[in-house]
């Protein structure tokens, strides 16, 4: 049952990304180009998503368990450290360079030619690099 909802959530997430313009790298760059000709559309994406999200997470927190009766595990990490900030800055640099963040890249993987595939390959390598680096350090 959970697997069906996971697939459904992935599909709806992707439809939202496509409809919103997030899968268009030129539009993402237009949103990030605040000193040039700025396209504020993508602020509405985050606004719309958070509008629903606020209610969903409030209900989740109140219930403590899912509709299917399982525990809800929400992140409890509150630490604001260098890893968080530097990681987010590195992510933002890659996002601005390409116009892709992880969701839209996957939603473009089979429909936007080689560009999304190359980006996704790089992203998976990046995830692996950090995990290896982190496990050796720790």
């Amino acid at each position, binding site marked *: 049952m959970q697997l069906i909802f996971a697939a459904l959530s992935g599909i709806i997430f992707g439809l939202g990304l496509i409809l919103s313009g997030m899968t268009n790298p*030129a539009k993402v760059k237009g949103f990030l180009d605040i000193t040039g000709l700025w396209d504020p559309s993508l602020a509405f994406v*985050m606004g719309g998503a958070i509008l629903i999200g606020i209610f969903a997470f409030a209900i989740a927190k109140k219930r403590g368990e899912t509709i299917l009766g399982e525990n809800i595990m929400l992140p409890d990490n509150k630490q604001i450290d260098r890893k968080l900030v530097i990681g987010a800055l590195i992510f933002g640099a890659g996002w601005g360079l390409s116009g892709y963040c992880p969701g839209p890249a996957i939603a473009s993987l089979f429909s936007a030619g080689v560009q999304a595939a190359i980006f996704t390959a790089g992203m998976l390598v990046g995830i692996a690099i950090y995990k290896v680096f982190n496990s050796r350090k720790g």
Partner: protein
Amino acid sequence: MAIDWAHFTPLASLAGGLLIGLAAAILVLFNGKIAGISGILGGLIASKQAAWRWLFIIGLAISPFIYGLVHSLPSTENQTSLPVLLIAGVLVGIGTTASSGCTSGHGVCGLSRGSLRSLVATISFMSAGFVAVFVVSHLIG
């Protein structure tokens, strides 16, 4: 700052955002999980709970074909060269893994939960995105 009215699509973007919120709501209320794409990707291999992650990612990857059944896909434009895309991908992979989240995990789910940590992450990646586009479009380009 000048607004790019020609490309401004507030209604479609808002509607898309509502769908993204709905997807996050389904995942947390039925599965008890956070719809954070970078985290889901990071757990595809060597994770005890890999099955739901694979199904979410497959759903996300096939969504354009489902969209295409109802409506033609919106046109996209990507002028970034392949080497830059590859480097950007590596940066996104490293950065989202180090900071434990991306636009969805921190930007949508984290902010919806009122997480200060996610707010700091979101301000950080947005700022870096602004700077990257400024450098590429206005300093170099």
